[in-house]
């Protein structure tokens, strides 16, 4: 019996292979986007973990200067000679031809080698590792990326964090131009019996408790949450398809269910069979989805890696490793999603009365109560969203708000459409037009899921598109302000820098020092920049908050400027004071600093030199008349002897910055396009499925004298009207989404707020695109109607239904 029942149930898919394809593809796409995003996140997190445990799996206490500026090697020796078991570490990032590389210089004599990743601590550490000519130990993928770069010899070892190189202390010091200096001292376990207090040995240094090293994870959390949200959105859109398909398949099999039940198949067995069928489908589609997800993730991860590097300085290699955990989680989410999509259909089957009419009811009018329920849910979610916006804070709240908003909009869509149809029907005078509105309205329940998916995809598209374009507009304007100097030069040594200043006298309009030092600002790594008192800054600097006489006071050393990130994070707006090394200056203004993960403080150049005498004085911005740029560059190279790679012009920096920016949003855009295609696919499948069942509706209209060709045109028009209305609804939702992204999520994620700009031309394109998608989807069923033999239509009356 069960076997026969199973056979009967499965025969449905044999007769409707396209429906099967829809189900499988819908589920696979949903799983693919979800698991692809998860794979990217997992890869990045693994990289952070490896980077965080670059020096030991368990964090150790460190000794540093109070603001973590470099210290002298002599302080290490003084501590060792006093009985403090400490190991020196010099750390920094250098630019190479193969991209940035984080260098960790270690002292293999004093650092327990168990602190290094197992690969690095092994045979790679030989006598040849030690000394000025020693190699760099890097991960194999990093070695591949750095091939051809001018660096010490590379030794590739598994287990080393990406974009990180271990080197012997003197090698690292030379690479980082920190000869004789170290970044910090690691305090080792098992200190000896007696040692003097730290303040007696090294009065200028402080002991820091072990830090988790999860800075990077914290810093990039927002980015990954962003990705996760996108994955979830795509998954939700995919689930709409699955829900629609499963619902249809169940509706269409109602006669089979009834017959099977009438033949004596217990309801429990029927349910079990259906559940088994869904499980197998979910697993197959899930597996397919994970494979697709791997492709998606592989395609996207180079951009993600570039973004994380450019935006946060986090090191993630642009390759993906296969992890069992996301196979498992991908399959789980596929099964879970299928279950979620099927639960109402299964519930109906379980409660199916034996003698209920066995008609497919795809076009049944939705009941008033169901609509009311849906409207209630939409209102509730909208209120929840508003409440979260008002009372919530943080990134999670922002995403909860966003999710509630989107679902509310999706749930409200059918109601809006019903209202429009009702209005249309009331305004219509001609009978055919009246029928058109009424019939469209009747079709809504079958199409609403696909339309909701389309709404979500369109809204996301408008929202993200608006955010990216607004950002780009702001960013390019900001770049113009910020990069006012025509040339930027970096000397190799202090002596060369002084010679350079002399050389440039009279050759430029101004030589503006751009000197900076790394420091701890509000408890996090940051940088302090010195600026000269010059019109370049007064005219151009992009301030978003200011106090009177700001530039004069800055030049006199009476205060500092902070960047927006730091201002927002630590509440350092004008009126507040910043805690710096033995200095507590007031904040004079706040400037926007897009694309910088670090907090930044701007001080007058004299204050910087006075308070941080150790600052490197190597970098300068040169103001030159536009016609003299090339000449000055040539003179710097030929006459002064500055290597060409130490001179950068404004245009290249802008190009580079825009490159980083574009990569940042490549992922968003790619996911966006995928989501939209999924939604388009949903419309297509829904229309195709419905078309087959619409004959009984069309036949009477045909019999009343409406030509097939005209009927077909009306079918096409119907799809276009629905898609167009959905698009109109999507615009405000998308703008709301853009606003949330710019004003709430960006502030939380990156620390800056951006103005919202509108781009109606983009919407026009998107609207045309969605009409085109709906039109294309409706075209095939319409053509079928136009060419349908009249006999088929007559059969509708012959078959007593």
């Amino acid at each position, binding site marked *: 019996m069960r076997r026969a029942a199973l056979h009967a149930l499965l025969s449905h898919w044999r007769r409707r292979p396209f429906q099967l394809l829809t189900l499988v593809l819908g589920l696979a796409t949903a799983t693919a986007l979800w698991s692809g995003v998860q794979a990217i996140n997992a890869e990045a997190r693994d990289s952070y973990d490896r980077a965080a445990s670059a020096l030991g799996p368990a964090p150790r206490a460190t000794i540093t200067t109070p603001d973590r500026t470099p210290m002298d*090697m*002599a302080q*290490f*020796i003084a501590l*060792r*000679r*006093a*009985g403090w*078991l400490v190991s020196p570490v010099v750390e920094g990032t250098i630019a190479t031809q193969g991209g940035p590389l984080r260098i960790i210089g270690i*002292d*293999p*004599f*004093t650092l*327990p*080698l*168990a602190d*290094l990743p*197992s690969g690095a*601590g*092994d*045979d*790679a*550490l*030989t*006598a*040849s*590792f*030690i*000394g000025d000519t020693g190699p760099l130990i890097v991960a194999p993928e990093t070695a591949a990326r750095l091939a051809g770069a001018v660096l010490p010899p590379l030794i590739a070892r598994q287990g080393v964090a990406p974009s990180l190189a271990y080197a012997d*202390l*003197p090698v690292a010091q030379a690479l980082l131009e920190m000869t004789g200096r170290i970044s910090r001292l690691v305090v080792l*376990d*098992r*200190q*000896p*019996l*007696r*040692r003097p207090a730290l303040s007696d040995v090294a009065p200028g240094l402080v002991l820091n408790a072990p830090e988790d090293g999860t800075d990077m994870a914290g810093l990039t959390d927002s980015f990954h949450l962003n990705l996760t949200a996108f994955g979830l959105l795509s998954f939700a859109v995919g689930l709409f398809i699955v829900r629609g398909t499963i619902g249809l398949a169940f509706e269409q099999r109602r006669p089979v269910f009834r017959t099977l039940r009438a033949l004596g198949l217990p309801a429990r067995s029927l349910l079990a069979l259906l559940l088994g069928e869904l499980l197998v489908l979910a697993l197959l589609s899930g597996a397919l989805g994970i494979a697709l997800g791997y492709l998606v993730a592989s395609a996207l991860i180079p951009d993600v890696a570039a973004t994380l590097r450019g935006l946060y300085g986090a090191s993630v290699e642009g390759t993906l490793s296969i992890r069992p955990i996301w196979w498992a989680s991908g399959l789980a989410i596929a099964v879970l999603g299928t279950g979620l999509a099927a639960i109402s259909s299964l519930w109906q089957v379980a409660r199916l009365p034996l003698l209920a009419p066995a008609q497919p009811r795809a076009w049944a009018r939705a009941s008033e109560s169901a609509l009311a329920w849906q409207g209630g849910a939409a209102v509730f979610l909208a209120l929840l969203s508003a409440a979260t916006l008002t009372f919530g804070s943080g990134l999670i709240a922002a995403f909860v708000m966003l999710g509630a908003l989107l679902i509310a909009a999706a749930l409200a869509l059918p109601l809006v459409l019903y209202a429009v149809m009702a209005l249309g029907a009331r305004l219509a005078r001609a009978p055919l037009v009246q029928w058109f509105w009424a019939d469209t309205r009747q079709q809504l329940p079958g199409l609403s899921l696909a339309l909701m998916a389309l709404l979500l995809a369109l809204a996301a598209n408008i929202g993200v598109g608006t955010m990216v374009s607004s950002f780009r507009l702001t960013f390019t304007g900001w770049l113009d302000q910020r990069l006012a100097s025509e040339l930027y030069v970096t000397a190799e040594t202090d002596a060369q820098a002084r010679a350079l200043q002399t050389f440039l006298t009279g050759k430029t309009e101004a030589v503006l020092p751009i000197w900076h030092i790394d420091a701890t600002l509000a408890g996090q790594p940051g940088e302090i920049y010195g600026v000269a008192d010059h019109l370049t800054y007064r005219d151009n600097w992009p301030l978003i908050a200011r106090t009177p006489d700001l530039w004069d006071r800055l030049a006199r050393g009476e205060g500092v400027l902070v960047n927006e990130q730091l201002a927002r994070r630590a509440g350092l707006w004008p009126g507040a004071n910043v805690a710096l090394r033995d200095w507590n200056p007031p904040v004079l203004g706040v400037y926007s600093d897009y694309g910088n993960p670090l907090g930044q403080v701007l001080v007058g150049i004299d204050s910087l030199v006075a308070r941080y005498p150790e600052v490197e004085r190597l970098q300068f911005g040169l103001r030159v008349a536009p016609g003299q740029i090339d000449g000055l560059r040539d003179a710097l190279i030929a006459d002064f002897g500055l290597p060409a790679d130490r001179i950068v012009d404004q245009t290249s920096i802008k190009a580079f910055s825009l490159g980083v920016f574009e990569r940042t949003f490549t992922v968003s855009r790619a996911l966006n396009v995928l989501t939209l295609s999924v939604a388009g696919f949903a419309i297509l499948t829904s229309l195709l499925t419905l078309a087959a069942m619409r004959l009984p509706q069309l036949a009477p209209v045909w019999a009343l004298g409406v030509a097939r060709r005209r009927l077909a045109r009306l079918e096409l028009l119907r799809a276009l009207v629905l898609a167009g209305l959905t698009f109109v609804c999507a615009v405000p939702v998308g703008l709301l989404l853009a606003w949330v992204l710019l004003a709430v999520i960006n502030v939380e994620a990156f620390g800056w707020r951006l103005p919202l700009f509108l781009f109606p031309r983009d919407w026009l394109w998107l609207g045309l695109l969605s009409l085109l998608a709906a039109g294309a989807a409706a075209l095939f069923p319409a053509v079928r109607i136009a060419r349908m033999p009249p006999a088929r239509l007559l059969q509708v009356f012959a078959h007593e239904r």
Partner: protein
Amino acid sequence: MNGKRQRSLRRRTLRGGYLPDQRWRGLVLALGLVFWAGGVLAQGFAGLGAREDGYAQVAPGAFDFPADHGAHPGFRIEWWYITANLTGEDGTEYGVQWTLFRSALRPGGMVDQQAWMGHAALTTPDRHFVAERLGRGGTGQAGVSGEEVFSAWIDEWAMAGRDIGTVDLVAQGPDFAYELRLAAEGPLVAQGKAGFSVKSASGQASRYYSQPFYGVDGVLTLPEGPVAVTGQAWLDREWSSQLLDADQSGWDWVSLHFDSGAKLMGFVLRDGGGGFTSATWIAPDGTPTPYGDGDLTMTPLERHRVAERDVPVVWRVELPARAVDVTITAMNRDAWMPTLVPYWEGPVTIKGSHQGRGYLEMTGYD
């Protein structure tokens, strides 16, 4: 109490607090450290048994003091090695070791191409405390200066004084410390032929002298508190570029203080055959008499299981030319040094034709 401490020491050892981390081995071997670790040689390591071009080679001749108390970076390896037999006020016997090793990473004698390694140990009848330090040359973290005043140091450990005859000796670990004053009561003694100590039949050799006549007083710090001690100490100074013959797998070395005031230094270099022996009889006035291969006999009488090795802890030592026939017994059989290159080193008591006490060192028991 005792058992607990022993267990904790063992646990520490197992956890790797002292134990040479396997991953260190690549570095340690490459550093060319100073012991005849047989297994290392068997693995084909171009180590101490191999002649390497570029290093200075030892030659017979007179010492140049005080310069020779300092480092000889042109040679591959060198050490300042002190062992002390001490007695507390209650008569308890203690042993103390303080060693600084220098090993050149590359030929050329560059100061920053030197690796320094310090070992310190404190042995009581039932406990054995060990600490180890490593440092890079040329930074000031470790080094030796023989001119003007004498100073050898690594981190806060030091052997320093106005000359090598009067030095303070300081070292500590997480659970022990000592501060000792050493004053020479006799002359420096050249080992081998006027300080040229032959190590194998094929001619491997080192420059080697000793100060076996230190009188000692000072304080040991044990977990339960300070202990005032007095006793005697022995300094060995040795440097070479090629110490081992390829088939030599390790050595057993003794420094014995006889109650008569005479001293005996002796060693066996173990190889596939009967081994290579050498000894120096030091009269109470410091006059040395060297004895070549075969004159000294050392016979293991009893072995002890320590650190998963069977190590001889009771020996019969015979030097017929001086009518010496004694049995030396480890004061603490567990005096194992679980350092990067592990070995056994501890105080012994002497019974037989002569009475006294001394130190025993055994390497290459893998």
